[in-house]
């Protein structure tokens, strides 16, 4: 009970918990973010590819405290009737209670499903498919590869979509699948574990997310405590050729097309950073 702090004085930590919006507003007025970053600065990003020996490909990505592990597994399956020459690609994102108290155990929640679907749409819609599905064919109408990409979040501190896209890109680049052929007599697929080959990949996709604070400030790479305060979030997915692979604006807030274009311009800078991170992570 003998404390020198008067009972009416707030510490910064208490203020943040009691009035998060006011706390952020006060700090952002000083042109800085609570964790000391500039508005356009992303958190320290680390990519470590090929860290899981039992998977066909893998990567661990950290963006600040957000940590995502991606493992790629290849299995043989029958192709669909309407696409007899194409394999499948199945991304799955897991956000369990391990990574944050906001997630419950059990079947994937809304956010996990949303991120999974967005990853899937990056790979399936239009001509931007990252994995060339025709190259996953072992024998037309008989056997194809199914590529399972399992992404598990170990630590949730916001901007999960960027972390997942980065982990997936790095893991796919690290992936080698065995050379396989169909033994017609026995009707089984034989795979040579020694002779592996990399996946045929189209240009890489990286994502950059921006929060729009009070409809005017653009905050790059928002963390978990910033995310609920952003009325809008814009995610830009860019490809190697400078074209866009996806753009999502979500949240009930409003934004102008100029702000979206600003996000794209900032994302281009972020792209070169991420591309060099991934290429250096897989060389060792």
């Amino acid at each position, binding site marked *: 009970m003998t404390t020198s702090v008067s009972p009416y004085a707030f510490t910064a930590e208490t203020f943040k918990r009691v009035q998060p919006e006011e706390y952020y507003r006060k700090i952002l007025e000083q042109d800085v973010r609570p964790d000391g970053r500039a508005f356009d600065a992303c958190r320290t990003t680390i990519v470590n590819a090929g860290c899981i020996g039992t998977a066909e490909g893998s990567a661990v990505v950290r963006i600040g405290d957000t940590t995502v592990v991606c493992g790629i597994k290849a299995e043989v399956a029958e192709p669909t009737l309407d696409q007899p020459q194409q394999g499948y690609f199945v991304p799955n994102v897991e956000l369990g209670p391990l990574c944050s108290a906001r997630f419950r155990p059990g079947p994937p929640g809304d956010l996990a499903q949303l991120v999974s679907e967005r990853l899937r749409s990056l790979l399936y819609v*239009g001509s*931007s498919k990252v994995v060339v599905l025709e190259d996953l064919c072992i024998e037309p109408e008989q056997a194809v590869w199914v590529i399972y990409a399992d992404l598990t979040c170990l630590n949730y501190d916001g901007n999960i979509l960027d972390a997942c896209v980065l982990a997936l890109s790095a893991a796919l680049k690290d992936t080698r699948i065995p050379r396989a052929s169909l033994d017609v007599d026995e009707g089984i697929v034989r795979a040579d574990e020694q002779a592996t080959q990399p996946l045929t990949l189209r240009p890489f996709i990286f994502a950059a997310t921006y929060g729009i604070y009070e409809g005017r400030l653009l905050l790059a790479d928002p963390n978990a405590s910033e995310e609920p305060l952003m009325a809008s979030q814009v995610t830009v997915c860019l490809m190697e050729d400078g074209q*866009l692979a996806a753009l999502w604006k979500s949240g*009930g807030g*409003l934004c102008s*097309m100029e702000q979206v274009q600003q996000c794209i311009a900032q994302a281009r800078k972020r792209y070169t950073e991420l591309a060099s991170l991934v290429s250096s992570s897989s060389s060792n």
Partner: protein
Amino acid sequence: MSGSSRADGRTATQLRPMSASQGVLARADGAVRFGFGDALAICSVNGPMEAKLKEEQLDRATIEVQYRPATGVPGVRARVMEAAIRDIVEASVLANHHPRTLVQVTVQHLNEAGSAMATTLNAVAMALLNAGLPLRSMPATTTCAITADGELLIDPTAEEEAVAASIHTMAFVQEQHQLVYIESTGHYTEEQLAACHELCRAGADKVYAFYRVALEKKLAEEGFVVEAAA
């Protein structure tokens, strides 16, 4: 752009004819069936009503969204749709005017014939108005597709979407044409995105005009005298 080559005879900038039936469900506070041609969705809105204790929020209304596709069980695509519906509702409903209540939005897709998200989101906007909730805006949504040859087509049908290089859905509020929602996937340049934005914005203006006509018609049927727009 040269003469249209679209299968249904529309030009590249022409929306399918819009349709709306308001107050179609007797027990809901608001219900609207909205359609772009064959693409139809029905949305019902209930609220503000009593919220369950654990869902109650002290400073605002809780928004509950459910989406069901026309066929099959709701999958991950339904979750994306629900997230988009939530964005539209958040942007329009004055949630902090109704603290500790629940607003329930349910959408059943009736026929999926392309531009599924735009059809859904417009049904939601009209149903919110039909429920008599105080709104700050009524977002209007349109979809456009870029074909493999780089041609922009507004309000694509399912067949046009299947072969498109990219698909762009944008929701606007009328005020300065600010954006509420964008979903834009495929493979496209920044210039193409800007062109899609122009096209979708022009389309959204037509959707607003439709909202207006539909509301005026309904008010006239109910015996209100509608003054001519300034």
